[in-house]
């Protein structure tokens, strides 16, 4: 039963931490974006 536990842990940890980083990045970006004039956003 060790096997399935470790396999799941590997996948969940990896995909989980990446998702957390993704969500945190987008959230913080939205918050900052409203405090900064559009002239500072050359990607738009």
């Amino acid at each position, binding site marked *: 039963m*060790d*096997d*399935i536990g*470790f*396999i799941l*842990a*590997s*996948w969940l*940890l*990896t*995909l989980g*931490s*990446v998702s957390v*980083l*993704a969500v945190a*990045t*987008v959230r*913080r*970006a*939205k*918050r*900052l*974006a*409203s*405090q*900064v*004039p*559009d*002239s*500072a*956003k*050359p*990607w*738009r």
Partner: protein
Amino acid sequence: MTNAAATPVSGTATSKGTATTATRLIGAAALALTAFVVVSAFWLTPADAVQGESVRIMYVHVPTAWVAYLAFVVTAITSGFSLARRHRTLGFDRVAGASAEVGVLFMAMTLVTGSLWGRLTWGTFWQWDPRLTTTLFLFVTYVGYLAVRNIDTDPQRRARRSAVIALLAVLEIPLVHFSVVLWRSLHQEASVLNPDGDVRLDGLMLFTLFAGVVAFSLIYVWLVLHRQRLAALADARITTGLDAAIAARRAEAASTSGAGA
């Protein structure tokens, strides 16, 4: 300025964040491909003849390792450019930093998944072989680099300081690897145990592995684009804040001198 209700500044700010058509496309592709890889890794591909089910960790371990190294290379190259191209220093530096942030996460995951996989296949969580040991050093170096980036508030100073640190790391890692190879050769290990070394990859397994590498690379690109833009916003906010503070001071000075005259 730190108002959590996020009122727009000077009427020209909107809450449009760092997303663009490009990132939406990349994000969608990354999600779709990752979903396929997960399904394939767990259900479509067979268990390995030697390793059994534990080979399914390979489909997450190898792509994370690939991204971790890719991220390091990108940080190194953009650091070089940030020093060489003085008028574009900040742009390159932001990419270098974003790449390192994403890279350190993937490198941590590489070490964790590799350790779990090793525990299942060889029975130990860790082996002092050159590849693993160098990867561990690379991880610590990343962490140090990010710590250096965190200190400076002035973007120019931060860019220059961290670029030097990154380039020194490029110098250091081969030296570390070489010394560790020499060091471990003293111990005459019968075979360097390597989980992905003794797996025979058939068609679908190879394809899933490749798809995983592509999927994670797309995730990497998506994350770096967003984090690099996030860094630009953070720097811009400091400038905007300064400009606003200066403007407020001037207004105050004008009104008091008017009143006092």
